[in-house]
C-alpha cells in the first residue's frame, strides 16, 4: 500500500506535466473541432456545428491532395532512410581509416534545427546562387528550377529529409546490430549460409523490432513535417509540396480557421495511428500458431 502511494507520488509531477501540456490541449482540440470558429469572421464567436468540419474535409480537395502528397513523401523519404541507414550502419560495423571522423560528420545533421536545414537547402537550390543548380547545369546542362518544377521540388524535399534524418536511422540500427549475439551468425557460417541468406534469415528477423521502432518514429515525423518544407518550398510550386502538416499550419494560423484546422489535426492523428497499427500487425504482431494435426 505504502509503496503504491510512493509510486504515485513520484509519478505525480510527470503526470501533471503530461496532463497539462498533453492531454488537456488534446481534449481542447477535440472540443474546438466540433465548432465553427474563425476569430476574424463576421461573428468571431465559437459556434457548435456538430460534425460538419469532419464532413467538410471528406470533400476538401486541398486536404485530400495534401494527404496524398504526404503519404508519397513519407514512403519515399522513410523508405530511403531505412535502406540507406542500414547500409551505413553495416559500414560502421567495420573498421576503416577515418571511421570516427566519418561517424561524427555523418551525425552532424541531427543536431541542426529543421528551420535551419530548410534555409540552407533553400540557399543551395535557388537558381543562380545555389550550388546544386550550378553544378547540375555545369556538368549535365540541366536547368534546375524548383520554383517551377513540381517533380524537382518534391524530390528536393525528400532528399533534404534523407540528409537530415538518415543519421538517426543509422545510429538506431547500428545499436541494434552491435547488440546482436555472434553465435547464430557463426553457426550459420559453419552451416555454409551465404551473406544473403544470413541477412534474410538471421539479421533481418533479429533487428526487426529496431527497424519497426525507427520506422514508427520517422513515419510520424514525416507525416507532420512543416518547418523544413516551409523554408525550402513554402509548399509550392502550386500545392506540390503542401504536405499535411503545412496544410494544417496554413489553415490554423494565417487563415485562423481554428475549428476546421482542429478537425484536420484529429483526422491526421487518427490516420497516423492506423498506419502505425497496420505496420505493427504486418511486421511484428504475434501470429496465431497453426495447429499441428
Amino acid at each position, binding site marked *: 500500500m505504502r509503496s503504491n502511494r510512493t509510486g504515485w507520488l513520484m509519478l505525480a509531477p510527470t503526470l501533471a506535466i503530461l496532463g497539462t501540456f498533453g492531454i488537456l490541449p488534446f481534449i481542447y482540440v477535440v472540443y474546438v473541432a466540433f465548432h465553427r470558429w474563425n476569430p476574424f469572421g463576421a461573428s468571431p464567436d465559437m459556434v457548435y456545428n456538430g460534425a460538419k468540419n469532419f464532413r467538410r474535409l471528406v470533400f476538401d480537395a486541398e486536404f485530400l491532395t495534401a494527404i496524398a502528397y504526404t503519404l508519397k513523401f513519407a514512403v519515399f523519404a522513410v523508405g530511403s532512410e531505412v535502406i540507406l541507414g542500414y547500409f551505413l550502419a553495416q559500414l560502421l560495423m567495420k573498421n576503416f581509416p577515418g571511421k570516427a571522423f566519418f561517424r561524427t560528420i555523418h551525425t552532424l545533421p541531427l543536431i541542426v534545427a529543421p528551420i535551419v536545414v530548410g534555409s540552407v537547402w*533553400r540557399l543551395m537550390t535557388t537558381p*543562380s546562387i545555389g550550388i546544386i543548380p550550378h553544378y547540375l547545369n555545369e556538368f549535365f546542362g540541366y536547368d534546375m528550377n524548383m*520554383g517551377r518544377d513540381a517533380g524537382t521540388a518534391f524530390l528536393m524535399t525528400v532528399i533534404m529529409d534523407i540528409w537530415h534524418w538518415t543519421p538517426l536511422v543509422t545510429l538506431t540500427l547500428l545499436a541494434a546490430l552491435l547488440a546482436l549475439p555472434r553465435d547464430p551468425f557463426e553457426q550459420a557460417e559453419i552451416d555454409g549460409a551465404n551473406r544473403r541468406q544470413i541477412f534474410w534469415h538471421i539479421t533481418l528477423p533479429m533487428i526487426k523490432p529496431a527497424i519497426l521502432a525507427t520506422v514508427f518514429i520517422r513515419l510520424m515525423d514525416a507525416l507532420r513535417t512543416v518547418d523544413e518544407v516551409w523554408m525550402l518550398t513554402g509548399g509550392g*510550386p502550386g500545392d506540390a509540396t503542401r504536405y499535411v502538416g503545412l496544410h494544417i499550419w496554413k489553415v490554423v494560423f494565417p487563415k485562423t480557421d481554428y475549428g476546421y484546422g482542429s478537425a484536420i489535426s484529429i483526422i491526421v492523428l487518427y490516420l497516423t495511428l492506423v498506419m502505425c497499427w497496420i505496420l505493427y500487425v504486418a511486421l511484428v504482431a504475434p501470429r496465431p500458431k497453426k495447429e499441428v494435426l
Partner: protein
Amino acid sequence: MYLKSKITAIAAVLMTTAFPAFADFWSDAGAKYKGVVLHGVTESSPPSVYIKEVLAPQFEAATGIKVEIETTSWDQMYDKAIKDMEAGTGLYDMVYIEQDIIYAYLSRNFLVDMTQTLADKPELKAPTYDDANFTTFANYFKNADGHLFGVPMEAFIKLYLYRKDLFENPDIQAAYKAKTGKDLAPATTHEDYTAIAEFFTEYGKEKGMELWGTTAQAHTGHAASWYEYYESIAPTFGVYNWGIDPANNYAASVANGGRMNSDEAKAAMKYWLHLRDIAPPESAQSTWTETATTFAAGRAAQGLIYGENAAWIASDAEKSKVVGQVGFALPPLADGVMAAAEGGTGYIGYYDGGAFGLPVTSKNQEAALLFLQFIGQNEVQPDWAVAAPRITNSATYDDPKVVAMDATLGGYYTMLKDQGKLFAGAPPYPFHAQVREATAPIFYQILTGAIGPDEGLDAMAAKAEEELTNLGYRQ
C-alpha cells in the same frame, strides 16, 4: 554588456542635449513606472532594429522604464502577437501592426484607442507628441472617428526602380532605338515596360551577361507573389481592392458585380506572367526579399521594389552592387488609372508600412503609451530616417540630414512626399489573411501553369465569394 552600457550612456547624453526642455516630463512621467519592463514584438526590419537598439535605450535613460523588443520573422511576429491578444495572456505591451492587418485587429477590439486614452489621462500626454505630426499614412491606423490606434513607425511606397547606368548608356540607347523605334526611358505604359524588359533579357543573353529585363516577385508557394499581383500589378490596370466590392455585398466575380475576374484583371495577370517568364530564373522562388536582392546584385534592369529595400539598394554599398545607379519612377499604368488616383477613386501601387500598437491585454498600458509617444516625436525621426530609411512624420522631410539622405537615395524621399498620395495601403478588410489564404492555392496553380489565367481568376473569384460567405461577410 560594455556595449549596452555605452549605448545607455550615449542615450542619456542625447536625451539631455536633444530635449532639455522636456527631459522633466519623461523623468516625471516615468517615475511612476520605475521597475516596469515593457515587452514588444515586431518584424525584424531595419526600423524595428533601430527601435530596439537606439530608441528603447534612450527611453529607458529618460524614464527608467526598461523596454525589451523582440524582433522576429514576419510570420512569427503575427503568430505570437495574435495568439497573445486572442488568449488575453498580456505578454506583449506593444505589437507591430502592419497596415494590412489593422482592420482585423480593430474588428476584434485588440488595440487601445490611443487618442481617447490620452484625452482621458492628460497627465500621460507628452508635450512633444502630437497626432497631427504624422503624415497622412497615419490615417490607416485610425477608426471612423479619427482616433489613432497605432503610432506609425515605418512607411514606404513600392516604386519602379531602373538602372540609370543601363538606361543612360548611349550604346544601349541606340540598340533599343534600333530595335523598337523608341527612345529608352523609364516606361509609363505596360507595353513600354514589356518592350524594355524583353530588350534587356535578350541583351543579357546576347552579351553573355547575368542580366534580365525585369524582376518578378513570383514565388510559387509564398503569399509574396499574391501580394505583388494584387497590390502592385492589378491596380495599374484599374483593378482596385483585389477586385472585391464591399459596397456590393463583397462581390468578387464579375457576374455578381466584382472585378476579380474582370477583363482588366485577366490582362494584368497575363502581362505579369509574361514578365515573370523573362525575369531571372530565381523569380519563381522570389519573395519581396529575394526580388530586392536580385536587383541589388545587378541582375535586373528594372523592377517593382518595396521602398524599405529600395533605400538600401540605392545607398548601401556593402549590400548593393548598384549604388549610385538607381533611378526611381512611378509604375507603368493603363489609361485612366492616373486620373483615378489623382481623383481619389483609385491608386497606382502599394503604400506599405506599419505602426506600433498597444494591445488591450497589456498589463502596462500607461507605461507603454509613454513609449509609443516617445517613438512618435518629431525629435527622434531624422536620425531614425537616416539609419533605417522610412518617414512617418511630415516635418522629417525638411530636416537637413534627411534632405542629404534624399540626395543619396536619388530622390526617393521626395517621391514619397510628393507622390505618396497616389499610392494606397491594403483595403480595409478584416478578412485580409483569410481571403488571401483561401484563394492563394489557385493563384499558385496559375503560376505553375496547372490552370490558365482566365479560368484561374474565375475560380479565385468564386473561391473568394465562398470564403466571404463562410466568414459571414457576404450574405
